[in-house]
């Protein structure tokens, strides 16, 4: 029997091809069964609430997609935004849909957009996706960043929508890119999305997801590397209100040597039937010696009646790696922390607010875009605020 040599992983094929490898990838919805709770990828999803996204539909084409710098000024040299046909590159070039909803979105989509960044950008690029009502819609957005370029890109989702969306992001070799997608949908909205990411050789991609609103939001992130020494840092923040379902699935694939990935998702859940799901997959292929990967999910249940599902999955097909770690937790407020703060004169509601700010704080800082961080903390504070004094508001805002 041949012996596996970690220094030469191709000599002997992996004895057990991973379950992730066997998953279908296709632009055709027919490649996937209609989702039910019995299918592993959908076991935590309230499929009955998003069944309209499971069969090809005629889109309203009313969702508004626009782009500017984050301060509202028009884009300038080195970045181009345009509407185009989905058959035109760069649309449709990064990976393939990985579940039925993503394939249905692709086939249904009539409107596609591209953002092409070819030179360093001094301020963040903002892509604004504004819902235009509850008629079903589908869009595809392809973003490319050229080799060696530094850029910050933010996609903001707001308004009322029932939207199926595909985002493709391809980063060039040795580029440094920060990508942030915020979901702040109004009540009644649903959003089923897939992010397909390609990280260039030696490139650094920070991919952040911030989900604060929407009745049902389900985002699936698929990724691969384009060469050795890529660095992927995925961050996620979610705040789930009563009755909402927010689901984030990160699928990290290590297919080249010496790449590093970090996935850190944190969520707070407030109230009855608030439901979050995080599923973090990390697949380390035989072709990826020297992999360093870690994934973490923490959930803070603020009030009784919320449910947080948290599932890390690791598939390691190469023994010659730096690390492949994971951690996951669901907890409620620590009574001792609250008592300590209260014993210093801080009322319970303010103490809770401090603890939640602390829970998210480091991650919010890491997003690294001041406009997003400040806004995000403001939203979280307002969610937690209940009849606080003006004095206290001042102190919290200043800190």
């Amino acid at each position: 029997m041949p012996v596996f040599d970690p220094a030469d992983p191709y000599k002997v094929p992996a004895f057990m091809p991973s379950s992730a490898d066997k998953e279908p990838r296709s632009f055709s919805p027919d490649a996937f069964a209609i989702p039910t709770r019995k299918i592993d990828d959908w076991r935590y999803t309230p499929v009955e609430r998003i069944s309209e996204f499971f069969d090809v539909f005629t889109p309203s084409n009313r969702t508004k997609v626009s782009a500017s710098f984050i301060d509202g000024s028009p884009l300038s040299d080195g970045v181009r935004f345009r509407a185009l046909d989905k058959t035109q590159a760069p649309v449709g070039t990064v990976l393939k849909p990985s579940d039925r909803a993503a394939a249905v979105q692709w086939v249904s989509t009539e409107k596609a957009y591209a953002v092409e960044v070819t030179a360093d950008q001094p301020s963040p690029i903002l892509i604004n996706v504004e819902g235009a009502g509850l008629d079903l819609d589908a869009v595809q957005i392809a973003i490319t960043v050229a080799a060696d370029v530094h850029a910050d890109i933010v996609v903001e989702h707001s308004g009322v929508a029932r939207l199926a969306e595909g985002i493709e992001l391809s980063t060039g070799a040795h580029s440094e890119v920060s990508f942030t997608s915020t979901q702040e949908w109004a009540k009644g909205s649903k959003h089923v999305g897939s992010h397909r990411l390609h990280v260039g050789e030696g490139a650094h991609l920070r991919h952040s997801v911030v989900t604060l609103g929407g009745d049902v939001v389900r985002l699936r992130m698929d990724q691969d590397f384009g060469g050795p020494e890529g660095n992927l840092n995925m961050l996620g923040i979610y705040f789930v209100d009563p009755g909402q379902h927010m689901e984030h699935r990160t699928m990290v694939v290590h297919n080249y040597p010496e790449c590093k990935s970090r996935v850190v998702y944190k969520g707070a859940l407030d109230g009855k039937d608030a439901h979050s799901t995080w599923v973090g997959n990390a697949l380390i292929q035989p072709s990826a010696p020297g992999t360093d990967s870690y994934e973490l999910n923490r959930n803070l249940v603020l009030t009784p009646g919320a449910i947080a599902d948290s599932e890390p999955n690791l598939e390691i097909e190469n023994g010659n790696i730096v690390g492949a770690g994971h951690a996951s937790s669901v907890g409620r407020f620590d009574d001792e922390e609250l008592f300590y703060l209260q014993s210093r004169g801080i009322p319970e509601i303010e103490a809770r607010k401090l603890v939640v700010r602390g829970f998210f704080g480091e991650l919010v800082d890491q997003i690294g875009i001041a406009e997003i961080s400040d806004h995000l903390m403001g939203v979280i504070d307002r969610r937690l605020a209940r009849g606080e004094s003006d004095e206290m508001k001042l102190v919290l805002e200043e800190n």
Partner: protein
Amino acid sequence: MQHTLEIKDLHAAVETKEGRKEILKGVNLTVHSGETHAIMGPNGSGKSTLAYTLAGHPKYEVESGQALLDGEDLLKMKPDERAKAGLFLAMQYPVEVPGVSMTNFLRTAKTEVDGKAPAIRSWVKDLQGSMKKLRMDPKFAQRSVNEGFSGGEKKRAEVLQLELLKPKFAILDETDSGLDVDALRIVSEGVNRAKEDNDFGILMVTHYTRILRYIKPDIVHVFADGRFIKTGGPELADELEETGYDQYLPEGSDSESALA
């Protein structure tokens, strides 16, 4: 201004797996501003329970009695209201609060206790001055509350809060535990300095007499089996140093109370 803390026939219990257990069995004590009371007793006598019950820890249920601060019953207040009324508990095991910076926490607490935000300039000066006197690295202000602090650093941070929040009465729960000689001196000096500035009354809960060399008590109490059983002057501490707590333990209990 003269303040009085009056504990009257306090009974408190805790829920355990074996059922409800009464720990405080009729505590009576009066403390005035400027007085330092040492509360000494064997392990498990209920000293710390007294401290936490006064501060309002949810684990301890008051069955009867009162704790009047200038006539207002603390036991009817929430923990934060007790702090605002002028009570401070320096904990034996200060709690870590991840992600909340010391500066943010201290300023929030100061604002709540005073009912108004402190003036920025004098606040920063007070904070830096107190930290310097406690020989705390200025970097601590930016770190999360108690997170990654050593035992000694946590106790210094407690005394820092005592200095800044200026309570009417301070309970020091085993503040000497886990401190080496140098740290004990720095922490004790901090307590003495705060007391000189603000003339608060101190309830100093301790098992050992060591800290009493640095923080001089006016009155020493022996606490055993949930109540005060003997009260005297500083000489009582010397006597305990000699004889230990054996004579105060219930019949038949293990003799493990030798003083260090």
